[in-house]
């Protein structure tokens, strides 16, 4: 019992399928070129082998079985910080995530710091989820300012005072966070639990006020990856054609 022609179709298909996923991921990155706090995603393809039994039956140490998508990685490197002038736009300069309370009560984490003060006077994301720990401005607060250590200063009754302090979360393995859309993430066993701390302390990002962290997608990097994926796709297509020709030849033997 040796390798069948059918296995050849499987190998060529695995190459085509993995490249398709790769191209979809690149498109996703490109679509998020302007998304605040977005981290680019990269697929990790790995090689596959047939089972040990199959290899032994064919008298080989191993039989190849193509490729597959082994992992999806988020490249968490810092995005550029761009000044916006909006007082509640907060950018993180360094590692860490803002904590956000989802409508169902779970806590999610984000680096997209485009916040605003909602109707209840609380600091919230643009889609209305509260930032944790809750920040509420006292009535009559004026000239609000957020410093690099996350302290929110405001002038209340003619006196400047600290009205709240932001806390951010960091993770042993931020790549392990699970994306839930809207650029927000949940902690998982892979990421480890959130470790809370004050911005600007060792290991935690500083807050840059009136600024946003831009997406870390690099247009030229993605464009090159797209060309490489397309090239690899057509090469796998060529192998599929050769496989098909081999199959036809084998079938003709029956005639």
């Amino acid at each position: 019992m040796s390798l069948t022609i059918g296995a050849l179709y499987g190998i060529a298909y695995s190459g085509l399928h993995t490249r398709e996923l790769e191209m979809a991921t690149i498109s996703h990155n490109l679509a998020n070129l302007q998304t605040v706090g977005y981290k680019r995603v990269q697929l990790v393809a790995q090689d596959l082998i047939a089972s040990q039994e199959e290899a032994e039956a064919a008298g080989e140490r191993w039989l190849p079985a193509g490729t597959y998508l082994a992992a999806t990685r988020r490249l968490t490197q810092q995005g550029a910080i761009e000044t916006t002038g909006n007082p509640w736009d907060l950018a993180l300069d360094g590692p860490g995530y803002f904590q956000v309370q989802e409508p169902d009560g779970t806590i999610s984490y984000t680096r997209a710091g485009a916040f605003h003060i909602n109707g209840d006077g609380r600091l919230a994301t643009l889609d209305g989820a509260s930032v944790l720990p809750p920040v509420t401005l006292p009535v009559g607060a004026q000239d609000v300012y957020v410093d690099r250590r996350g302290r929110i200063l405001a002038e209340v009754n003619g006196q400047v005072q600290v009205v709240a302090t932001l806390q951010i979360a960091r993770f042993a393995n931020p790549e392990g966070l699970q994306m839930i859309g809207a650029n927000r993430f949940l902690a998982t066993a892979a990421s480890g639990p959130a470790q809370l701390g004050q911005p600007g302390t060792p290991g935690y990002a500083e807050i840059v006020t009136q600024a946003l962290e831009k997406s870390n997608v690099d247009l030229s990097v993605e464009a090159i990856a797209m060309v490489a994926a397309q090239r690899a796709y057509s090469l796998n297509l060529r192998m599929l054609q050769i496989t098909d020709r081999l199959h036809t030849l084998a079938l003709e033997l029956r005639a």
Partner: protein
Amino acid sequence: MIRGVYAVAASMRELIELQARLSNNLANLNTPAFKQELPILTPIGDQEIAPVGAQLGATGQAIGPLGFGVYQGEDRLDLSQGPLEAHDNPLALAINGEGFFRVQTPEGERFTRDGNFGRDAAGYLVNSRGDRVLGEAGPIQLPEGDVTVTPDGSIWVAGAFVGRLALATFAGPEALTRAGDGLFVGENPQPAPPGQARILQGYIERSNVDVAATLILAMTALKTYEASQRMLKMQDEQTGRLMDLARFG
């Protein structure tokens, strides 16, 4: 004549397997640090053929050698260096030179050149499967902070020495068996002598697949398969005619 059929059929089977390895090369064009297989088909022991009756004492002259088809040479794993590419992951490590990273997997110790590493929840240096990477003193636990890896494989975090990567080398490609996921099972690993390889931080090794060589081999294999198929049909027709003769003779 039947002997010819077996020779051709064996070649055709080998060509399918050759094609599998070539397709696999191109399927893994974007697999980090993938090592290609470029099998070389070699003829199986030629046998001298003499005319029928020669063995009965007649002074028949030998007809010539008859091959028994082809098989793939053994040393087909190409361990040559793949191109290095800069990568945004600060824990992406590439080996420039000979050697393999050692990783601890549930199936036992494995060897890889794919150094697109990360941290797990406990802070250990892991590969993209989550297997722990081995240093000279076992798995490497990284404290929080910026990691610096020097070309000799020493790892520093925030200025403090954490450990040194242990690279393994092997006698040759025959000591390595592909295990999938960029991993190899290795026989008799030896510690890499110092200076044989440099570790580059922020780089990954791309696959070493030679697209042109793979395509040319694949096209040659297809033509050989086509020729073999015709030979097989021809010999089958001849056998058929012989049987017709036997029937009416």
